[in-house]
């Protein structure tokens, strides 16, 4: 665990020493602000309901998270520090967890910084704080799964750009799967199975403020699966 924290701390130090993290977080905040107040016409709707605001989150994350995770492994490989990291006394699993943790902390900082948006809105009406807490908890879980996917793709990519593009495509696909099945009018077991894989499908009840353990379990197991894949890939590379 100490090793995991060492890696995460190093990652965060690097992130905050360079302007990229600030720029990404700021763009996210600006976008969410614009979205709620202008695009969705929050005031015009006249309803103290933030459901739309949260429904859009998985789509926004398909861009935000790759921007935070793209450097993770791809940059190490470009700088050659990959070799340093793999020759320090860390196990592969610790490296993967440490990097996941640091990207997740960045994502969580970005997410928690959006809290003033609904809070300001709450001055205008009465919000259920329990609903808001559930919504934010759901957002954090969804982010964790997305970060794990982004980390995995970064561990496969040769450079930041392909890590970013690859992660955006995969995340968008996973987010939009349930929209695609309903667009195609697919039904039955086929659609349910596909929908089950969708990151957005599992986010549905969270955005209504409902905590469903099946959805939590889905996000946690998705995160675990992709972190395992990343760690497995690192070990495999040593043999080839």
């Amino acid at each position: 665990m100490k090793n995991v924290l060492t890696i995460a701390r190093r990652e965060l130090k690097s992130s905050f020493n360079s302007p990229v993290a600030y720029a990404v977080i700021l763009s996210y905040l600006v976008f969410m602000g614009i979205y709620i107040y202008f695009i969705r016409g929050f005031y015009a709707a006249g309803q103290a309901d933030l459901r739309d605001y949260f429904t859009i989150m998985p789509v926004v994350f398909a861009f935000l998270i790759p921007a935070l995770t793209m450097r993770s492994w791809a940059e190490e490989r470009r700088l050659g520090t990959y070799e340093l990291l793999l020759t320090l006394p860390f196990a592969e699993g610790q490296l993967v967890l440490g990097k996941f943790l640091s990207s997740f902390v960045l994502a969580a900082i970005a997410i928690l910084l959006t809290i003033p948006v609904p809070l300001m809105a709450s001055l205008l009406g009465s919000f259920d704080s329990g609903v808001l807490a559930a919504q934010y908890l759901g957002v954090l879980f969804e982010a964790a799964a997305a970060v794990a996917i982004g980390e995995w793709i970064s561990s496969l990519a040769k450079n930041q750009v392909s890590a970013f593009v690859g992660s955006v495509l995969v995340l968008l696909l996973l987010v939009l799967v349930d929209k695609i099945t309903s667009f195609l009018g697919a039904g039955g077991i086929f659609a349910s199975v596909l929908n089950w894989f969708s990151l957005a499908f599992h986010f549905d009840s969270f955005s209504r403020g409902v905590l469903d353990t099946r959805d939590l379990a889905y996000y946690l197991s998705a995160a675990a699966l992709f972190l395992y894949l990343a760690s497995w890939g690192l070990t495999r590379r040593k043999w080839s």
Partner: protein
Amino acid sequence: MIELRELRKSYGGVEAVHGVSFVAETGSVLGLLGPNGAGKTTIMKVLTGYHFPSSGEALVDGIDVAEDPVAVKRRVGYLPESVPLYQDLTVSEYLDFAADARGLEGDTRAQALERAIGACGLSGVRRKKVEDLSKGYRQRLGLAQAILHDPPILILDEPTTGLDPNQIIEIRELIRSLGQSKTVILSTHILQEVEAICSSVIILNEGRIAAQGAPSEIGEALKGEERIRLRLKSASSGFDQNRLSGVPGIRSIASFQAESPNVFSAEIAMPPVKAGAMEAGEAIFDWAVASGLKVLELERRRLSLEEIFVKLTQEGEGR
């Protein structure tokens, strides 16, 4: 102590190391010499747990690298050839990370940091960002990272590249003193470096050991003959190349050039000197005096590493 047993390593079907075995004892500095692609770096990457062997074994203090890589990595300090550093950290942040990674704490940690910073001459640049450092400082920061935790095993891939002559002397001195209590393996292109700091040498060629032994042995074994460069002045003009054949024991004249009617320079080959026998230079000097010539310059020429490689590969083909 480091032991390789019939180590083989291939990347994607291409074998980079074909069955290399050697032992490096504690308290010694082993130099790996060889042209690019000879397998030096691959051997180092296996010993640091970055790659696993395709077959054979690599043991570090008796621990198999493929079985317990983390235990091996704990014992090893490694300076990779590319000197990987985090560009966006400062020198002290980078070393702090290395100290954390090595699990150093409290007084040990503070002492280790001071010792490494002092030994590598980094005290003036602690607050500088790595990306602003010169190549020489980067090299020294990489070395500081490698020696930080006082590891029993040090693996240094071309440790003196990018340093100026004064720094090279300092770093060689540091490596030599570290080699008294540790097992040090370093790779280099420079023969003088091997002679200056290594207690034994392995010359690699195309993934195989081409020669090994103490630096002096290897030099002698490969030379086969002495090369002497001469500048002579004769009292009278009309000197020609044929008179050089009067040098006792001369094998051949490699080059001859008249600079002026009575000053000329030449390079000649002499048989290797046997212990106790007269040195080549002495014989030439006596001959010159007897022939009424003045010796302006007399130099025993070393075979360069390139020539040694040429020799080794040619011998390999001849077999």
